[in-house]
């Protein structure tokens, strides 16, 4: 793919440098250690964190932000642990994902991966109850991912029917699950949900 020099955005690296974890981005000397140890590259050979960093340094903002590979990083931090230049590679990728999400919110980008929807659904339950609520998460995530309630519930059942039975059977979820009646079915709600609300309002600027 030829580089469209006229589209390069020399400020892109600064955007990343300003995000938490992005501080050492410019120290990268392209050794590929990050990619060589990555468990995702082992499975998806085209996945290449080194290349994402190089493209970011060059200012290929559009190509980087619309790269679907951003969303298949498992955040395992192997790259971070091994980078000889102290680039916090895992956090750099997270910073780039956050910039992409902001662009999507501003209507400038369409993210195909359902990962932002999943992360939001997860955090919504934390905001509301103070703890993860698996069922609430799934009920928000699947319909959004599938673009409809019926298809969403169907996809959810497909993924979780057997799993739910297994968990219920072992008393981990379901009517007699968890440490008390209906644990796992009903959310486990903390007392200070008002503090959760404040955290999300002030940090996420909602």
């Amino acid at each position, binding site marked *: 793919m030829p580089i469209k020099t006229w589209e390069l955005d020399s400020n892109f690296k600064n955007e990343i440098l300003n995000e938490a974890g992005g501080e050492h981005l410019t120290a990268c000397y392209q050794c590929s250690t990050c990619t060589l140890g990555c468990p995702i590259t082992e499975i998806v050979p085209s996945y290449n964190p080194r290349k994402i960093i190089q493209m970011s340094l060059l200012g290929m903002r559009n190509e980087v932000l619309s790269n679907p590979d951003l969303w298949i990083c498992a955040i395992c931090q*192997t790259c971070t642990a091994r980078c000889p230049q102290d680039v916090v590679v895992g956090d750099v990728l997270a910073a780039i994902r956050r910039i992409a999400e902001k662009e999507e919110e501003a209507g400038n980008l369409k993210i195909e991966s*359902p990962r932002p929807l999943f992360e939001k659904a997860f955090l919504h339950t934390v905001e509301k109850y103070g703890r993860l609520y698996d069922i609430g998460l799934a009920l928000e995530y699947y319909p959004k991912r599938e673009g409809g309630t019926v298809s969403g519930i169907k996809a959810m059942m497909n993924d979780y029917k*057997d799993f739910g039975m297994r*968990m219920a059977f072992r008393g981990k979820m379901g009517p007699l699950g968890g440490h008390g009646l209906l644990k796992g079915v009903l959310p486990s709600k*903390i007392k*200070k949900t008002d503090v*959760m609300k404040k955290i999300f309002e*002030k940090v996420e600027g909602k």
Partner: protein
Amino acid sequence: MSVDKLAYYPGCPSEATALDQDISTKAVFKALGVELVEVEDWNCCGAAEAEDPKLVYALNARNLAIAEKDGLDIVTPCSICYYNLARTNNALKADEKLRAEMAEIDPSLSYNGTVTPKHILDVLMNDIGVDELKSKIVKKVEVKVAPYYGCYIGRPLGTAFDDPDDPVLMDQLIELIGGENVPFDYMKTKCCGGPLMMTRADIAFEMARKVLETAKNAGADCVALACPLCGMMLDAKQPDVEKALGIKIGMPVVYITQLLGLALGIDPKSLALGKNTVDTKVILGKVV
């Protein structure tokens, strides 16, 4: 160093999918004479899903502040909770401005940086220590184990408490209880795929398969682990992995506290050994 009382941060899975880890952790610490005081009204650490460090810091500042009031260090059985608590602690300790920012969100987030967050494996091996454990062990658990550490025990550097490429704490614990570690070096610290389960199950399943089949080919009776997300992926989801990939694995997966508990003479039921997805009977037959 000896410890007799710690704040306990269970983490969300402890209430449902990782009930076995929660029950066995409590049973083991009780048998070791270490009191666990649950962090009162604790909230979620943000897991892998809170990608904004500020959000992670705010969520964990509250939990740290609660333990700080009780004057206790925090222990958690979850690797991701540990990572989030520990990196928050590092960030807040080093940055007064950040501490003020947290306190401004809500006074209950005021944290002075006096708590040390720890992972159970760290507490067992380094604080309680081998000698103390040895003195309490009454049975031999003669199983062949694939010790699986996953992501946040040996990395990243700022929060790790074991070697990034060749961690040893779990290996040592397994030897201590009479078990045998099978050759598993390459897989010890590979990611289980957990964070991708809900968005790219195909990749996540392949990652889990690698871990489980490597353990099987190495002749392990079980995989031992110390994180509920790994437990979710490798144990609770194992039948789904088998179904999706058209393979049979049948590899028992247990929490390290379940194995240690057996060596401490705790009965299997009190260690929730019937709650693991893949049957664990093969292990019970090897406790002598």
